[in-house]
């Protein structure tokens, strides 16, 4: 319990010293020259700056697409980026491959050779570190607009963000929870937080020099189905960490679970509470660039073409009704493998149609269910964040590390050994996600009662216990064109 990491701004000199070993991880690290990079960033047009693009979308009342995409070779990544820009996508991801994510750069070089020789698809993403700053800039320069954002792993964060930002990328999912909770088995949250602190400080370095890089805060990415409040509480933790290191723009990410009222409630509550906690800690000059929605990646996809279109169209519809600035939708090929350029284009043609048509209506929905869900979500998020602050003595990092140990923050189906995994979620009669097991979550009794009632409502309606089988059925429901799992 001693000597733990704290949420305190790193001195610049201290930070600059930390950089050397990361930059030495692979020869391309030498290409990073921070001063030159700041200049490069300053010369980018507004349409390539994540924060500015998000703010503009907000002003115009539009919802854009933020895809997931990455491919092995530079020329393919360029072609993919162009295709995305042509499809009207303003946010361009550069998803890295799984070897880069494990720092196996020599292996990547080998595979790149092999790909060039045989044409076989051996990398499931773009190996940004092997390519380095100069090569990666070619991607950014290949289009006349589009704000880029690399998708990384815990281990690769420091070097890969150094290279990405120097190459002109302006957004990054710099969350301590994202990798740790969804991608790692043995890594500890403390390691993850330390790594993220470095990245946040790098963002702060740019910010001090007038370059705004936005963090899309995903929080604790869930692998099981459960209410999003643990996730949303941790996006607030992310925000407080970023802000402390000097980051000035935060993109609030809200994962959807499929019930409209609940999803829309989360979309409303998340940025409001994030703003409140940022202000409470004095980070009034940190802005929330926008709200980004995505269907939590839990759901497998039906493989019929009709259902394949229905799923992203539904996500788009909910996002549009939520008036968010962007949404990540799964492509129509999602279940089959990494989508082709064509399926990206087709998917966004479809979802953009809906986003445009719905947003043009300037809809402001009221549903008593949204309000009800919002009240519950707010109580849960506050209970979680306040508990973290309480046991951390006001320090979110210290608090989180303890909270995970205690199971005050928890999730089901976790791949990470540190996680208690005492909670269980299940859908209710209307397809909203409820807590079936609370584990040690520090919720008020009132909240627990609400969930218990909803779960027992479904138990009664379906005359069966909400057991593991039901959970798996719920999980596959969307793949079968249903909201709620059926026996």
């Amino acid at each position, binding site marked *: 319990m001693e000597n733990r990491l704290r949420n305190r701004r790193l001195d610049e000199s201290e930070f600059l010293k930390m950089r050397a070993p990361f930059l030495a991880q692979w020869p391309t690290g030498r290409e990073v020259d921070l001063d030159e990079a700041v200049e490069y960033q300053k010369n980018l047009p507004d349409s390539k700056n994540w924060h500015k693009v998000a703010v503009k979308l907000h002003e115009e009342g539009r919802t854009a697409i933020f895809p997931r995409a990455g491919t092995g070779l530079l020329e393919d990544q360029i072609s993919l980026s162009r295709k995305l820009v042509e499809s009207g996508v303003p946010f361009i991801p550069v998803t890295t491959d*799984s*070897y880069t*994510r*494990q720092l*196996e750069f020599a292996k990547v070089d080998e*595979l790149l050779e092999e790909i060039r020789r045989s044409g076989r*698809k*051996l*990398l*499931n993403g773009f190996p940004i570190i092997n390519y380095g700053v100069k090569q990666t800039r070619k991607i950014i320069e290949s289009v006349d607009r589009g704000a880029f954002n690399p998708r990384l792993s815990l281990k690769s964060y420091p070097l890969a963000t150094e290279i990405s930002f120097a190459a002109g990328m302006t957004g990054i999912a710099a969350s301590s929870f994202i990798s740790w909770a*969804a*991608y*790692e*088995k*043995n890594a500890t949250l403390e390691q993850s937080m330390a790594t993220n602190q470095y990245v946040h400080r790098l963002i702060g370095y740019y910010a001090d020099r007038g370059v705004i890089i936005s963090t899309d805060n995903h929080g604790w990415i869930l*692998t*099981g189905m459960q209410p999003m409040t643990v996730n949303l509480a941790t996006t607030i933790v992310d925000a407080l960490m970023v802000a402390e290191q000097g980051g000035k723009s935060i993109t609030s990410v809200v994962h959807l679970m499929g019930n409209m009222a609940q999803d829309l409630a989360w979309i409303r509550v998340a940025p409001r509470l994030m703003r409140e906690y940022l202000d409470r800690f004095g980070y009034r000059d940190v802005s929330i660039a926008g709200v980004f929605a995505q269907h939590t990646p*839990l759901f*497998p996809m039906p*493989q019929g073409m009709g259902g394949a279109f229905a799923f992203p169209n539904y996500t788009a519809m909910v996002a549009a009704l939520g008036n968010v600035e962007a949404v990540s939708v799964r492509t129509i*090929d999602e*279940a*089959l*493998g*990494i*989508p*082709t350029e064509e*399926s990206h284009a087709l998917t966004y043609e479809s979802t953009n149609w809906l986003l445009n048509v719905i947003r043009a209506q300037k809809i402001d929905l009221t549903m008593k269910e949204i309000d009800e869900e919002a009240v519950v979500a707010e109580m849960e998020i506050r209970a979680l964040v306040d508990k973290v602050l309480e046991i951390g003595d006001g320090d979110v990092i210290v608090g989180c590390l303890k909270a995970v140990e205690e199971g005050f923050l928890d999730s089901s*189906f*976790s*791949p990470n*050994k540190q996680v208690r995994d005492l909670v269980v979620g299940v859908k209710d009669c209307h397809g909203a996600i409820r807590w079936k097991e609370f584990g040690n979550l520090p919720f008020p009794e009132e909240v627990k009662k609400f969930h218990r009632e909803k779960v027992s409502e479904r138990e009664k309606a379906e005359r069966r216990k909400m057991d*593991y089988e039901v959970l*798996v059925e719920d*999980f*596959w429901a969307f*793949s079968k064109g249903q909201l709620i799992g059926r026996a």
Partner: protein
Amino acid sequence: MANPTVITGTVGKDAHVIGTKILSRALREAGFNVIELGILTPPEEFIKAAVENNADAILMSSLYGMAENDVQGFKENCIKAGLNDVLLYIGGNLGVGKHDFRDDEIKFKKLGFDRVYPPASDVKTAIADLRADLKAKGKA
């Protein structure tokens, strides 16, 4: 006869956990003794666990598309470790991008796997297959 022992996990650099969790749980409920290795499991660890636990089968998952690379020489290493008789199953999403599952099947059978399962395949069928295969070997 004792309950058969099986090893599960996601191989290589793959972090997809949900499939292997569901599979493990279903195997356990079906009466198997399950050693669950979780995600990011190097091929050697599967072998080590199989040897240590005298396993009857290894049920490997891979979703991220790069399994072919992860399991090069796996069958040979099993044999080297004395696992001549252990059943090798693999399932998930075994190639990168949209491709024909039948090609995966041919490819992975060549690599020494006894059965190969496409994405989103039903675990019940797989367990039935496993029972049948074990029976054929006089193990269940």
